[in-house]
C-alpha cells in the first residue's frame, strides 16, 4: 500500500535476557496520529528506535517510507522529526546555534515557522541550552523536531515531567503540525487522556507484545465498563471470554470487557448474573485492564 509510512513485520528484539519486542507487527498510514501506550519498559522506545534506524532489526523487517532506515539513513531521516524522551540536546550550544545546526541537515527547514514557535514559546535565541528549564528544553527540542515539517513525527514521551501549560503548548504545536495535510505522528505517552485527545489510532504495547492496535473510535466502541450483580455471592468472578478485568466481591462486580451488552448478558445468564449499568470504558480503564491481564498471565505462566 502506498500510503503506508511505517511497516513493521514480525519484529523481535532481545536485550540480554529481556525480550523488549516479541514478534511485533505494526503499520502506520499517512495522515494519522498514532498513540503508543504501555507501561515503563513495555517496549515503546525500542519500537521508536527501530523506526529511526537507531536499532537494527535483528529479526523481522522495518520499512519507513518503503526503505530500510538502517541502510538508508539519509533518505529516511530527512523526513522524520524526532523528540527523544530525554531531550538530548547539546548543553553547550545556544538555542540559536542549535537551530542553525539542525537547519543544515534539513532542506525543507521552515525558518519562519521555527521563529514563530520560538516566539510563541517565549524562548530567547541567545540563551544557552544548559540554562533552560525542563519545559524550555522540551519546547526547544520540539521546535528542532518539527520546523522542517517532517512527513513523520516521532515523539517519545513528549510531555513527561512537564507542567500543564508547557504540555498544552507542545500539544498545540503538534496539532498544528499534524494539521498539515498528510503528516503522520507516532507518539508514546503515559498520559492516556492526552492520547485519547490527540490520537486517531491507539497501539497498546505490553511486555514486548502489541495487545491492542485499533482506531480510537473502534476502541471506544468495543470496550465497556459494566456493573453486574449475581444472585449468589462469588469469591471470584466466573471465567468468561471477553472479560479483561474485574473488581468486586460477593454479588456486586465491576468488569471491563470487549463484549456487546447482549453478548455480556448471554455470558452472565448461566451464572445467574445481570447487568446493572454499562458505559464505554476510558482508555485508562482499558489500559489498566489489559496491562493487569498480561501481568496475571505472566504470573500464571
Amino acid at each position, binding site marked *: 500500500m502506498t500510503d503506508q509510512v511505517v511497516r513493521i513485520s514480525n519484529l523481535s528484539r532481545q536485550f540480554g535476557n529481556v525480550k523488549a519486542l516479541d514478534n511485533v507487527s505494526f503499520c502506520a498510514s499517512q495522515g494519522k496520529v498514532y498513540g503508543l501506550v504501555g507501561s515503563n519498559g513495555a517496549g515503546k522506545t525500542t519500537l521508536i*528506535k527501530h523506526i*529511526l*534506524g*537507531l*536499532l*537494527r532489526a535483528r529479526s523481522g523487517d522495518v520499512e519507513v517510507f518503503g526503505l530500510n532506515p*538502517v541502510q538508508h*539513513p*539519509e*533518505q*529516511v*531521516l*530527512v523526513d522524520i522529526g*524526532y523528540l*527523544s524522551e530525554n531531550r*538530548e*540536546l*547539546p*548543553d*553547550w*550550544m545556544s538555542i*540559536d*546555534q542549535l537551530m*542553525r*545546526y*539542525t*537547519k*543544515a*541537515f*534539513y532542506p525543507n527547514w521552515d525558518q519562519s515557522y521555527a521563529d514563530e514557535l520560538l516566539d510563541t514559546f517565549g524562548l530567547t535565541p541567545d540563551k544557552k541550552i*544548559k540554562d533552560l528549564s525542563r519545559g524550555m528544553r522540551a519546547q526547544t527540542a520540539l521546535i528542532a523536531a518539527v520546523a522542517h515539517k517532517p512527513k513523520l513525527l516521532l515523539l517519545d514521551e513528549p510531555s513527561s515531567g512537564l507542567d500543564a501549560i508547557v504540555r498544552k503548548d507542545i500539544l498545540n504545536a503538534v496539532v498544528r503540525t499534524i494539521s498539515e495535510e498528510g503528516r503522520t505522528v507516532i507518539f508514546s505517552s503515559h498520559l492516556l487522556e492526552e492520547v485519547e485527545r490527540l490520537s486517531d489510532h491507539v497501539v497498546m504495547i505490553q511486555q514486548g507484545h502489541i495487545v491492542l492496535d485499533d482506531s480510537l473510535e473502534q476502541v471506544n466502541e468495543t470496550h465497556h465498563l459494566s456493573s453486574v450483580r449475581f444472585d449468589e455471592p462469588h469469591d471470584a468472578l466466573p471465567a468468561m471470554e471477553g472479560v479483561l478485568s474485574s473488581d468486586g466481591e460477593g454479588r456486586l462486580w465491576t468488569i471491563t470487557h470487549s463484549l456487546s451488552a447482549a453478548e455480556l448478558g448471554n455470558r452472565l445468564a448461566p451464572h445467574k448474573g445481570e447487568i446493572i449499568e454499562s458505559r464505554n470504558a476510558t482508555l485508562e480503564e482499558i489500559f489498566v485492564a489489559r496491562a493487569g491481564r498480561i501481568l496475571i498471565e505472566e504470573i500464571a505462566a
Partner: protein
Amino acid sequence: MSFLPALNPRTPTQALLWKCWLRTRWKLFFHQAVTLIILPVIYVRYVPEDRTLAELSEANVTILIASLFILFASCGSMMYRMKNAWDSSGFVLDSDYKYPISSLRLSLVPQTYLVAMFLVAYTVPSVALHFILGYALPHWLSYILIAEFMLLVMMLYWTASDGWLTSARWVFALALYWGGYLVPDITRDETTGQIDSVSLIQLVIPVLICIVAPIITTRGVKLQRCGDVSEKAIGDSLLFRIVRRIQSLSFLKSPCPTDSPLLAEFWLIRQKRGLFLRLLTGLGLGVLIAAMVAGMDVWSDSPGNEGINLFEIAFFAGIFLIVVAIVGAVTSFGVSYIHETPRVSVFLRTRPLATSKLLYTRFAVTFAGLLLVALGMIVVLYGIGGLMLNAFSSAREEFDALMSVFLSQSASDIVVQSLRTLISLASILLVFCALITGLLLIRNSFLKLGAGVVVYLLVATVILGFFADSIEISIFDFLVSHLWILVVGLPVAVIYFSYDLLKNHVTSLLHLSILFVVGAICYWLTNTDIELDPETTDHLLLFQSFDLTYNLLPLFALLFALWTMSRIRHT
C-alpha cells in the same frame, strides 16, 4: 560570547565542521596564544645563551608536542564520551545519529577536523618561532606522526566493542608505541636541529594506520548507530568484571551502621572505594610498572647493563599515583560526569551532615586508599627486586640505602618526619583536587586567578626543565622571582576563606578555631626552618617571608577544600 560572525552552515558537512569548531575554538585560540606569546618570552628571558640552535630546536619540538597533549586533554569532550564517567567508549557525536547523514560522513568529518586542527596547532607556533628565533621549521614527518596518533586514538575511543576486546585494543596500541613501531628512527642535523633522515621502511606502519584507522572507526560508528555494539564496552571488560567481583566478595561487605550518620557516611565511601580494593590496585599497578620498566630496559640500547634505577621506577609510580590521587580525591568531592557535564549528585548535596564532616570523612578514606595503593606498589616492586629479576636488584639496593638513612634517626625524628611527609602530601593533594574540582564546578574569579597562576608556574617550570645543563639556575631564578605570589597569596587566601566560611555559616567560630589550632600544629611540624646566609643570599627578606608563610599550606588546604565543598553543596 562570540567575536566571530554567526555562521550559517548550509550542508550537513558544514554543520558538523561548525559544531567541531564551536567546541574547540577557545581551546585552540588559548593554545595558540600561549605558544605564540609565552614561549618566545620564556625562551628569550630564561634560556641560557650558550645553547646551540640544534638543541633549542629539538627542545622546542618536544615542548610543542607536549603542548599538543595538553590541547588534546582539554578537547576531551570532543574525543571521548563522558556520559557514564570514565568507563564508556563510543562515538562522541552519537547525539547526531538522528540526523539525515550517512555514517561515513558523520565519522570522517570530525576525524578530518581534529587532525587538521592539531596540525594547525603545531604548525603556526613552529613557523612563528622559526621567524622570531630561527628555530627549525616543522618537518613533514611530524605531520604523519600527529595524524597517526590522532587517528589511532579516535579509533580506540570511538569504536566500541563488546567485552575485553576494547581493553585488548588499547593494550595492543600501547605495546606498539612502547616497542617503537609507531615512531620511526630519526636523525637530526647537528647544526640546525632539523630532521635529517628518516627510516622510510619504518614509516609503513604509521602510514598504514593513517589509512586503516579511519576505516575501522567508520565501521565502528556504523555498528553503534544501529545499536549493534553497546557503547559501554570498557566498563564491561574482563578487568572491570574482576574488580567488581572482588568488590562484591562477602567478607569485604559489612552492614551499614545505623546509629551514627558519620559512620554511615564512612561506610558508604568505603563501599565505593574500598580500602582492600585500593591495596589490590597498588599490587596490580606494581606489576604493571615492573613490566613497563623491564620492557623499557629490554628495548633500550644496552639492556641490563646497569640495571633499573630507583628513579625510573619512582617516575612511573609517581605518574600512576598522581592519576589515582586525582581521580580519588575529585570523586571524594562527589563529582561525576553525566551527559558530558561534571555534576555533584543531589544525594550527596542533601546528606544531613555538616560540610566539614562530609569532606573529612570522604577525604580520609581517599587518602588512606592512596597510601594503600603506594604500599601495594612498594611491596610488589621490592619483592620483584629481591626475588625475580636481577635488573631490579640495584633499585632495591637504592631503596634499602634510603630506608636505612631514614631509620637511623631517633624515634621521635622518625615520627615527626613521617607526620610531616603525610601532612605535606595530604595538603598538596587537598589543594590540588579542590582546585580541579572547583574549576570544574564553580564559576569564581578568585579561583580562576589562582588556577591561572598555578598553571603559569607549572607550565613555565616544565618548559624550563627541558633545557638541561643550566636548568637549576634558570628554574631557581624563575621561581625566586615569583615567590612573592606565595608569600602574599597564602595569608590572603586563608583570611578570605575563613571570612567566607564564617559569613556563609558553613563553619562556626569554634570549628574555625580548632582548624587554626590544627593548622598551628601542622605549622610547627612542617616548619622547614631554612637556614640562610645573609652574605650569599640576594633575596633574604623574600626567603624569610616565604619561610613564614609556606607552612600555612595545611591550614590553607583545609579551608580551601571546605570552601570548595560548601560552594559545590550550596551554590
